């Protein structure tokens, strides 16, 4: 689901030469121009998915802050529209709401209220805010006696304890001393992990690569590049030599490895795999978001939506909702896994007493190899969306082999256990790779769950 939709937005500034009634009169009499028009944003469009973290990059004056101000509602676009879902808060500039004559304590309450918190909310978070700011001893001192570092800390501490759905950050991650910066960065990542939507402006490419999945580069008010964060960084600051390019690549691989807990080599392998084959796709925060994103991609695609591996029906009902209950089918024997899968999932695991009731979806009960063929004979429609949640190589292979002729350009497949667990290269991943090699279909990766196992693919060509 989209959290921010910016559609064809332009913003012009009128640089007025006259700021008083007198100046205006004088210039009018002399027939001098009263103003000049300057285009800060030119037909910019972008969509940010809920839970996504977007980097906004560009040289000074390229329009980044202006775009953030349009998103936060501080300014209104001249043309086009901006729409947001949920509460927006931001660090457009740290400490904007701090008042020099008030004490630190009073400023915490005032600034929190400015950012939309109620008194009760502020009181509940007060201790956390104070602890985060590390200025306990100066709470009763007027803010005008604070050093600029303390001032920033206070402003930042309040801002990161608000509870917005969308959080905007404008060039403020560089405040404070290195330990504080690190803490702020952690906090921003925690925001991301909580599923909040982030838009971050920074000139620190390393930070952006760590926090953001996608990047947009603005050039003189136009979106010059949109894609994966690493691509965006390379676009804005191309490596100057082959050596530097290589260093960058190595640093990224190391970062990908460092991002996962030591010893979890399957996870690390998946990270590398993702960085290599799908560097530019959205990284979705959880499996549900991935499923919903896949469904959104298939929204314009006519035909059936099929799930293989219904289990208790939770995800099938998400699919049924998205397809409005039309042509949705769930396949499962409900006897659990037909053979051993990975460690901890022996044959028979996932068995349920009785098939679940799922509104808007029809169940096809039985082993895939015995049900799919008959089903397809009765249902001649194309397949628009497939959710492969059967875990095993053999099941995925059966499904793909039977469905193959019904897949068309635009069909979206969400694999639920594609990668990132021990032995992943032997299951859904392998079944898909083999199917692609045998059938010659072409496809794009469209997204995956960050730190998890789900992957979305979309068919782009059939030979």
């Amino acid at each position, binding site marked *: 689901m989209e959290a921010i939709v910016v559609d064809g937005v332009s913003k012009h500034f009128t640089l007025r030469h006259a700021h008083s009634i007198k100046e205006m009169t004088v210039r009018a009499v002399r027939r001098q121009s009263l103003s000049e028009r300057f285009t800060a944003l030119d037909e910019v469009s972008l969509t940010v998915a809920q839970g996504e973290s977007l980097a906004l990059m560009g040289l000074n004056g390229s329009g980044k802050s202006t775009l953030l101000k349009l998103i936060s*509602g501080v*300014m209104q676009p001249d043309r086009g*529209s901006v729409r947001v*879902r949920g509460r927006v808060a931001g660090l457009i500039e740290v400490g*904007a709401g701090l008042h020099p004559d008030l004490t630190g304590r009073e400023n915490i*309450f005032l600034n929190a209220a400015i950012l939309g918190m109620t008194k009760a909310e502020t009181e509940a978070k007060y201790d956390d805010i104070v602890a985060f700011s590390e200025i306990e001893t100066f709470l009763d001192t007027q803010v005008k006696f604070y050093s600029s570092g303390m001032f920033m800390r206070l402003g930042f501490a309040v801002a990161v304890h608000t509870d917005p*759905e969308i959080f905007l950050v404008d060039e403020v991650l560089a405040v404070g001393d290195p330990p504080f910066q690190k803490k702020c960065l952690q906090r921003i990542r925690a925001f991301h992990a909580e599923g909040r939507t982030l838009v971050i402006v920074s000139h620190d490419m390393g930070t952006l690569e760590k926090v953001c999945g996608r990047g947009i580069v603005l050039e003189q008010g136009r979106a010059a590049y949109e894609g994966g964060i690493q691509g965006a960084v390379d676009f804005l600051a191309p490596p100057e030599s082959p050596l530097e390019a290589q260093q960058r690549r190595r640093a990224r691989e190391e970062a990908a490895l460092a991002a996962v807990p030591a010893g979890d080599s399957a996870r690390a392998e998946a990270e590398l795999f993702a960085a290599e084959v799908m560097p530019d796709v959205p990284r979705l925060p959880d499996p549900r978001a991935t499923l919903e994103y896949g469904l959104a991609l298939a929204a314009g695609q006519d035909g059936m939506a099929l799930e293989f591996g219904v289990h208790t029906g939770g995800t099938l009902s998400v699919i049924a909702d998205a397809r409005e209950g039309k042509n949705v089918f769930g396949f499962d024997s409900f006897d659990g896994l037909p053979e051993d899968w990975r460690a901890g999932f022996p044959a028979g695991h996932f068995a349920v007493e009785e098939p679940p009731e799922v509104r808007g979806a029809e169940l096809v009960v039985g082993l895939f190899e015995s049900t799919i063929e008959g089903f397809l004979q009765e249902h001649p429609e194309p397949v628009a969306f497939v959710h492969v949640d059967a875990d095993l190589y053999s099941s995925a292979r059966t499904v793909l082999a039977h469905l193959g002729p019904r897949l068309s350009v635009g069909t979206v497949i969400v694999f639920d256990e594609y990668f990132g667990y021990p032995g992943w290269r032997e299951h859904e991943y392998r079944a898909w790779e083999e199917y692609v090699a045998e059938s010659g279909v072409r496809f794009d990766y469209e997204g995956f769950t960050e730190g998890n196992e789900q992957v979305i693919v979309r068919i782009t060509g059939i030979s």
Partner: protein
Amino acid sequence: MTVQPLLAPGRGGGLLDVARRRYLLRLLVRRELRSRYQGSLLGLGWSYVRPAVNFAVYYFVVGIFLKMSRTIPNFPVFLFSGMVLISFFTETLITTAWSIVGNAALVKKVYLPRELFPAASTLVSGVHMLPAFGVLMGGAVWAGWAPSWIAVGSMALAFAIVATLAMAFGLLFAAVNVFFRDFGQVVDIINIVVPWSVPMIYPWTTVQDATHGGWLLQLYLANPLTSAVLLFERAFWWPTNDQALTLPNGAPALPGGHLAFPYHLTVRGLAGLLAAMVLLALAQWVFARLQRRFAQEL
């Protein structure tokens, strides 16, 4: 979890939004009071000193030297009741006019319903009015004032008119001042005229005599501020007037036989309040349109 709708940001509901964010409004008022008096010699005491000096000047010059005390019995209460109301009005015009420009740092960086700032300034002026109002009350009681329905009703109506009018002009001036920084000067000039344009220093009958009761008088009386000042005088001054006369038709009169208040003052007051409310609605509309460009103009 309910899915929230996609909405355009920064399209506030105007003064209604201010009502929704009362808590923030209260903090803003407290901040302004605090910062205005922090480190000052007398603190809120200045709210006594200024009206006291203002009052003394008028009282001695107009009341004693120009002998207005003879025309108007109990002149100090007469003068002070109008003055309390008018200083509230003029102070509000000045502070609201600078309320957006003075909060530029916030207006440029965080979206808040911008009406908050003029509203906070108006409330701060209201707080400043309290000491003078207390003095007026004390003086009137000392001079024999006792509460009555007509007094309390007149006071409330007068205050409603002035507050509404001040808020309306406050919104307009605050917005215009963003675009033309010398507009503040215009406000200063307006404030020189206002105290003389209402029957605060002289009785309204002076205008009646000078205009021979013609259309100019009607224009003068049509000003809602005039009605408000007359109502405040009816609330505080008239009950303490020991030389009160009534004409044969029962209308209150001054010693010279002049009408103390124009006929139908309550109706005039209500009409003035209605006019002020219409003006407020208009001002809110203009403000809402102009505020979209505040952030880029500051």
